[in-house]
């Protein structure tokens, strides 16, 4: 059981990476990856929201929406949960951790529109995962997001100091880098049999 849980986390984190394999969360991946510390803060906030949102959305779907035959309402319900969660986190940080709010403040509203958060909650219920596997998927996916956004930000910091052709500066070279990273991650395919 524990082995399956760990393998599910590794699978979501590396093999089916949320950004490079499933292409979720591209907006913050490109928008908040210019500085490493900002990317790290964004990644940590996304971990928190994805894990809590998945823990709330799974019981709502299985114990409320499915018995009432209104499973088609899942997306709206998840959006409500995620939006409320982000509001509560923002409020909590404003009140109790101004320093963390200062570093995350600008990126907190971005989490609401991060499709990785909704994608994980939706994927957990669409594939009929158990609660434990849903949590493994949520943890793996969000940690995978953190790893990729942080690695990408480190690469972009080095690219800023590199002699990149003028026509490729900025987003074009970032997209080429992301494509190469995606190809590199194909190497993890077959890691788990």
């Amino acid at each position, binding site marked *: 059981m524990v082995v399956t849980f760990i393998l599910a986390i590794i699978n979501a984190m590396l093999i089916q990476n949320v950004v490079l394999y499933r292409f979720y969360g591209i*907006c*913050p991946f*490109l*928008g*908040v990856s*210019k500085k490493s510390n900002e990317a790290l803060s964004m990644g940590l906030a996304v971990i928190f929201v994805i894990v809590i949102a998945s823990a709330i959305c799974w019981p*709502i779907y299985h114990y*409320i*929406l499915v*018995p*009432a*035959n*209104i499973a088609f*309402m899942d997306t*709206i*319900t998840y959006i*409500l*949960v995620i*939006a*409320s969660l982000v*509001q*509560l986190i*923002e*409020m909590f940080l*404003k*009140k109790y951790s*101004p320093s963390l*709010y*200062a570093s995350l*403040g*600008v*990126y907190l*509203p*971005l989490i*609401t*529109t991060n499709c990785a958060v909704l994608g994980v909650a939706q994927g957990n219920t669409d594939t009929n995962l158990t609660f434990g596997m849903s949590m493994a998927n949520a943890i793996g996916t969000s940690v995978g997001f953190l790893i990729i956004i942080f690695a990408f930000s480190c690469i972009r910091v080095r690219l800023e100091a590199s002699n990149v052709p003028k026509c490729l500066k900025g987003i074009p070279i970032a997209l080429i880098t992301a494509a190469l990273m995606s190809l590199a991650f194909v190497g993890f395919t077959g890691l788990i049999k």
Partner: protein
Amino acid sequence: MTKELIIAIVAIGLLIAVFFVSYILNKKTPIPKECEELKIDASKCAACQNMACALRKKEEK
């Protein structure tokens, strides 16, 4: 109307209420003094599609 459907409608209603309450409370919570002048990078706002974001509105002004 079945019992399950009534429970689901009440639950979704509660979620909507939770969202509005959290939104209002968040608006009323004062921003810490050191965070009042958070610098906003316009390129980051361009990458986000959240049109209701207060920071985006501030940037547009």
